[in-house]
């Protein structure tokens, strides 16, 4: 990983790392950090485009996968085009512009990555390390911002730098695969130890967050890396066994914290003025944001290993809504505007399912274009598969991201902490496989 052409070989990985960190700051639970990070992340994205252009121009050979770029262009183009029928055209154009910028950055990074894709992977892992360490710092100095307090129903959960326990854990789950790959493949002992330390930081943060989706995504990413680096069936069995044992241990640890029955109920806003006799304040008795699925009196919602946080009901509602505009949806970037959370067991402004999110925004056509892009990425990786190739780590990030996409709305939302590493890794697959 030692740079051959300073600063070009170091500048891009450093920018990638910083981009991941700034995006995580933009989604921070520490108000001051989030205030600074939110506008800064778009400047960082533009800087990434500029640095990636320099990185691509300095490459000995530029790699473009026509299939991957064409499939991505269909999806991104549809996002831009959807402003023509969007329920919020300006919002759609703004969101689509960020997706275009990210796609351009990812194409440029991939174009210059032949023979040095492991540097990009190191940059991704470096960004995760910054985010993980920043989370530990928040834990030290602002404990209440780093840990979501236990309630009567839910145990305490670590959120580190993130605004909730699922934020940073999503990003770190994507980065488990490249950290593991670098830990197994790095030439020097120092790099190997550093990568394994990063892996420990990522997995520790994920387990402490209690995020089931992140755990599943990290497990899939690690399993893909295991398949991609094992040179013998015995080694493959050992690596997969280690992944299964780690996931089992992590899942068991996640069940250990208990809810706090004595926890004070969450304070609502200022009490609504009472209504006159004979009339009711419907928002007090039947709140619009949670009138569906109110648990029966005495029925508590205790979180177990396989407990859903009400997602399945919300997904059903979001799918029914997507059916109203089934072909091309409501317009890119409008997910939060059109989705209405009416379920008492679900708390989010999004359906928390990336594929339903795509169907809502861009309909069946968007979903097909997205799946074509994913197929194009894997069709580039599989024919040129080599044991230990960095393409394995990139494909593992994509696979992990697709699994996490089943329980979180994020892949197409560029401001989300998981979008940048996912798109960079997806475009990197052909270059790393070349």
């Amino acid at each position, binding site marked *: 990983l030692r740079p051959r052409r300073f600063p070009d070989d170091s500048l891009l990985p450093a920018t990638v790392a910083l981009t991941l960190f700034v995006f995580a700051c933009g989604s921070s639970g520490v108000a001051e950090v989030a205030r600074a990070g939110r506008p800064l992340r778009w400047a960082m994205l533009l800087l990434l485009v500029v640095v990636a252009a320099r990185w691509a121009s300095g490459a000995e050979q530029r790699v473009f996968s026509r299939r991957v770029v064409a499939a991505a262009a269909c999806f991104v*183009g*549809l996002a831009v*085009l*959807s402003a*023509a*029928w969007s*329920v*919020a055209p300006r919002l759609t154009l703004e969101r689509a512009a960020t997706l275009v910028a990210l796609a351009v950055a990812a194409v440029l990074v991939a174009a210059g990555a032949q023979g040095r894709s492991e540097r990009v992977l190191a940059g991704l892992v470096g960004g995760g390390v910054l985010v993980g360490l920043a989370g530990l710092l928040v834990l030290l100095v602002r404990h209440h911002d780093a840990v979501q307090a236990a309630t009567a129903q839910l145990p305490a959960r670590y959120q580190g730098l993130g605004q909730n326990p699922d934020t940073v854990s999503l990003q770190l789950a994507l980065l488990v695969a490249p950290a593991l790959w670098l830990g197994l493949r790095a030439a020097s002992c120092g790099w190997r130890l550093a990568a394994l330390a990063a892996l420990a930081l990522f997995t520790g943060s994920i387990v402490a967050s209690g995020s089931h989706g992140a755990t599943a995504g990290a497990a899939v990413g690690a399993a893909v890396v295991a398949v991609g680096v094992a040179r013998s069936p015995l080694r493959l069995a050992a690596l997969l066994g280690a992944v299964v044992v780690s996931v089992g241990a992590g899942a068991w640890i996640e069940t250990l914290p208990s809810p706090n029955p004595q926890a004070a109920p969450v304070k609502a806003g200022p009490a*609504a*003025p*009472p*209504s*006159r006799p004979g*009339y*009711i*304040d*419907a*928002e007090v*008795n*039947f709140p*619009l944001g949670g*009138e*569906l699925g109110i648990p029966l009196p005495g029925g508590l919602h205790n979180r177990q290993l396989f407990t859903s946080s009400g997602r399945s009901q919300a997904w059903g509602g979001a799918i029914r809504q997507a059916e*109203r*505009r*089934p*072909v*091309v*949806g*409501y*317009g890119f970037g*409008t997910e939060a*505007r*059109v989705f*209405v959370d*009416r379920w008492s067991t679900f708390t989010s402004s999004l359906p928390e399912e990336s594929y339903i999110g795509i169907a809502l925004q861009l*309909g069946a*056509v968007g979903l097909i274009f997205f799946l074509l892009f994913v197929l194009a990425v894997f069709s580039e990786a599989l024919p040129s598969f080599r044991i230990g190739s960095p393409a394995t780590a990139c494909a593992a990030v994509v696979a992990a991201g697709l699994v996490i996409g089943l329980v979180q709305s994020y892949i197409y939302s560029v401001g989300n902490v998981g979008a940048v590493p996912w798109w960079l890794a997806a475009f990197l697959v052909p270059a790393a496989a070349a």
Partner: protein
Amino acid sequence: MNRRIVIAGAIVAVVAVALVLVGRWEGRRDVSSQRRGIEKMRRLVGPLDAPSLAGFRVLPQFDCLTYGRSGNPVALELCVDSEGRVVQAIDRRGVHRHFWSLTYQPSAATTRVDRAEVQRLIDRMRADS
């Protein structure tokens, strides 16, 4: 080569135009279905100050009036934005609740009510007014 580029460009343009037409048609169909539901609920309610007026809801985006049927004080609900557009209607008379909503595109709402009257009715029902 040039011919292939022209053909590919023409195909992309045709597909793009088709998608825009489909998108707009879908949008019109959805909006008109929501409008019909909202209008039907508006007619079911009758006058806003009907004797069945049973409650209210005050939210940042819109305010709502609820009307009772068969002992259910929130059986019918109309939600009105600051410009008097009915942007959401809910029917809770049966086992299944039905929602008609244009909260994501209030400008498409065509059913209107007197916003001042809505405010007067809410004030009448609130004890602090």
